[in-house]
């Protein structure tokens, strides 16, 4: 199947060679045909999407079309969309319809993108396989017996299967890059602060970012250009609004660092081979490659889970059923019983586990040993990256240590599931940008290569990604 790229659709719609309504309807036909087995979407918003597309048609006559005119986009269901149910794949938010658009969603709409639906995820983003959705598991379009990765599994699967031209995901510890690697698409986790978090339903505030998932680097860059920049509603957003679609594809003199720690014990040979092959190709094009040590990343996973769970335990406190979402009012005679009943029945097991662990880590007497210690480790990781980037333009390694695992394979082994995030969490802790792009496959399952850069150097990072994509070609089955 030939994928229609977002930038081609937008160009066609602007020129008038493509009808926004027709293109949107075409995508809905594909959703109707394929989503029964993939199950990428929690909500499909056909009526409002067709309405949006009609308005774009109207605007075309006035020649006021944006950079994403008529581009169908799927939005991960932990990003607020005004008037469209937003659940975080949790029973506790079932039926919740946000009264406002997330800043990123508002910006996309202003550029003419059409929201076609909300995609599945691990409940509140807590997982790496999309199996922890309270509603259903999403399947990997490359092999239906395998997971799509997570937590933005629905977004990556939708893009990989052509159910949406592009998608928004969110990345707290790898949640954009992991499913992008597993599904063979391009995913970008921006620098912390580049994209507004306003409207992103928080899992772990200091780690997460909204970012693009696309079939090719140009689409990802285009989407990022449309959502980047300071937002007065988010005090932690400090980025500039830049155009990332101007590429200068050349590997000459590019200094690439390859941290040994990213090829640890659990890394499949097929994965490390594919990543090295790609790096060697860049070297052949004139890049300078050097293996390095980034010792502190060995502690990244422990630090990451303590910080993420601590923040989550506080962020998720608001879901008590009193103001919105799920309420189990059977027999509750006082507020504390009501809150307990709502939270007991509303949250899934994995979410409860993380709330409990986070509550423990923040408790008096344990705070110093866990939360503060984790922050110290985080500082060491930041310093390690800073040192490395003094010498290298980008760092490279695998996105995931393995290809997509089988459905149900790791749900019974939580530690193995957590371990699979070992290559993605360091970038979240350091706040640096990181992208995953396809670099090959093994047994029909895609392999992702990770590119990391220094904060706010998304331009440089995407340039390298484009160079690599030009050499390797877009992922094809």
């Amino acid at each position, binding site marked *: 199947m030939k994928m229609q790229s977002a930038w081609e659709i937008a160009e066609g719609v602007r020129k008038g060679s493509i009808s926004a309504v027709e293109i949107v309807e075409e995508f809905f036909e594909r959703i109707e045909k394929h989503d029964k087995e993939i199950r990428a979407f929690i909500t499909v918003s056909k009526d409002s999407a067709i309405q949006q597309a009609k308005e774009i048609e109207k605007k075309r006559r006035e020649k006021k079309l944006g950079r994403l005119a008529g581009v169908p986009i799927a939005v991960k269901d932990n990003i607020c969309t005004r008037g469209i149910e937003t659940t975080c794949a949790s029973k506790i*938010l079932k039926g919740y319809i946000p009264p406002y658009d997330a800043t990123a969603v508002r910006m996309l709409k202003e550029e003419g993108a059409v929201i076609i639906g909300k995609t599945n995820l691990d409940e509140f983003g807590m997982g790496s396989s999309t199996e922890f959705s309270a509603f259903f598991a999403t399947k990997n379009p490359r092999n239906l017996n395998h997971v799509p990765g997570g937590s933005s599994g629905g977004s990556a699967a939708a893009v990989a299967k052509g159910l949406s031209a592009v998608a928004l995901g969110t990345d707290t510890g790898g949640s954009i890059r992991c499913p992008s690697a597993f599904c063979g698409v391009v995913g970008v986790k921006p620098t912390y602060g580049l994209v507004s*978090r306003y409207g992103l339903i928080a899992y772990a505030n200091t780690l997460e970012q909204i970012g693009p998932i696309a079939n090719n680097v140009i689409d990802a860059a285009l989407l990022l250009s449309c959502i980047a920049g300071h937002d007065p509603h988010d005090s932690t957003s400090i980025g500039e609004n830049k155009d990332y679609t101007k590429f200068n594809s050349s590997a000459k003199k590019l200094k690439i660092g390859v941290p040994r720690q990213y090829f640890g014990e659990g890394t499949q040979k097929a994965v490390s081979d594919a990543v090295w092959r790609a790096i060697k190709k860049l070297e052949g094009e004139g890049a300078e490659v050097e293996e390095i040590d980034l010792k502190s990343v060995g502690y990244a996973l422990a630090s990451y889970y303590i910080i993420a769970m601590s923040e989550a335990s506080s962020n998720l406190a608001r879901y008590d059923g009193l*103001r*919105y979402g799920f309420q189990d009012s059977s027999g509750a005679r006082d507020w504390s019983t009501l809150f307990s009943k709502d939270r007991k029945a509303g949250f899934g097991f994995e979410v409860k586990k993380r709330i409990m662990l986070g509550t423990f880590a923040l408790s008096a007497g344990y705070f110093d040993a866990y939360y503060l210690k984790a922050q110290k480790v985080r500082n060491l990781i930041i310093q390690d990256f800073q040192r490395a980037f003094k010498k290298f333009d980008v760092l490279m390694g695998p996105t995931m240590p393995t290809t997509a695992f089988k459905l149900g394979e790791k749900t019974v082994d939580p530690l193995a599931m957590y371990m699979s995030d070992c290559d993605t969490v360091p970038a979240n802790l350091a706040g640096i940008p990181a992208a995953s792009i396809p670099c090959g496959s093994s047994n029909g399952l895609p392999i992702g290569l990770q590119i990391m850069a220094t904060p706010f150097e998304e331009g440089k990072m995407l340039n390298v990604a484009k160079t690599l994509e030009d050499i390797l070609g877009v992922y094809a089955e």
Partner: protein
Amino acid sequence: MKDDLGLKIGLEVHCQLTVLKTKLFCSCPSNYRGEDPNTNICEVCTGMPGTLPVLNEKAVEAAVKIALALDCKISESMNFFRKNYFYPDLPKNFQITQYDKAGGSPIAKEGLVETIAGIIRIRRIQLEEDPGKLSYEGTIVSSPISLVDYNRAGVALVEIVTEPDLKSPKHAREFLQKLRSILEHIGVCDGSLEGAMRCDANVSLFGGKRVEVKNISSFKEVERALNFEITRQKTMANVAKAEGMETRHWDDVRRVTVTLRVKEAEEDYRYFPEPDLVPITISKEYVADIRKRMPELPDGRKARFVKQYVISEEIAGVLVGEKLLADIFEESLRTRMASNLLGSWLAIDILGYLNRSEKTLADMKFKPKDLAELARKVEKKELTENTAKSVVIKAIEQGKSTFEFAKEGAAITDEKSIMDAVKEVFEANPKAVEDAKSDPKAINFLMGQLMKATKGRADHELARKTIEQAITAGS
């Protein structure tokens, strides 16, 4: 209160920054009063999923003013923390506040307030968001339902925490009065608004466990609640029942404290840095600029009153105890006359009447200059002081903006008229005249009858002298 009780009182005072137009972290109006429940809200102050707080920078300025007025050390950098606990009036089930441990830095600390009964040290000042408000049917204990209104949620509060330096319930009240006047002088908190200043009190006796009393809504209530709590704790000690650490609720209808929750240990709020807000730098230049624009504070104003208007320290102290009162005093003194009379009228008679009748200075509708004119007439002996005061009280009582005199309003100052009136009163009250020979209290009764007969116009001093002489002459 005797020292051997080992009484320790500390206060946590919550002051709304009523000067701000918007709430602390969103753009909803900060004035929620009089709105229908749950209408003065937005997705941010109700903690809707995905929303983020954005600091209202005017709140920092107001808090710095408070810190300067209370002689505090102002932090060069401050940050916010989350205080985690579940309660239906907290939309996020955590409160964004400040903290002085674990890398936390509140806006200011280590200040002091001077009161007549001694210095009260300020431990810290912090910015935080107000929770919503719960309403009950009847009392918190017996109500079958509770209703929640988030109109107030997110309003900027400054919490002022004292060291346990308060010597008595009365002292606590004096401190709060002073604090209120300071806040009104710097113009950040209008203490006359219901709920704009609230306080929690920590009380312990005999070195026992600290008991926190919440829900104290006015300064009178502080004194009542503390008196109740001290008596209660004394009684408990007498029956040898150990006092545990607990939080009690002041029931201002029944005027008792009731157990809200018993604490096993220090409550664990799992404080950690608020990840959605960045640390705020408070530069020396910023503080210096605010310091330059600081208005006159009550202590300075009191000293100036004593010097400029030649009134007593006591009267000046009472006048500056309420900004509006001091303003009225100064406003009415534009003519630079009768400062002593005006001072005592305002500080003693008018304030006394307002307190007894549960009215406020806002119920005074007449102009300060008219009050001054009245004082001038008394000085010129055109009016007795009693008549003047009674028309003033009557005007406040009736909410009138002008003074009304009885038709023949002039003071009776000639001895003959007074003598005639005294004779009439003596004839009508022979028993009282007889009693007065041995009981001075009866003289007061006769004075009352005389003033009644003359509609208050008899010159007070002359009338008393005449009655006393007549009684001495008759015995």
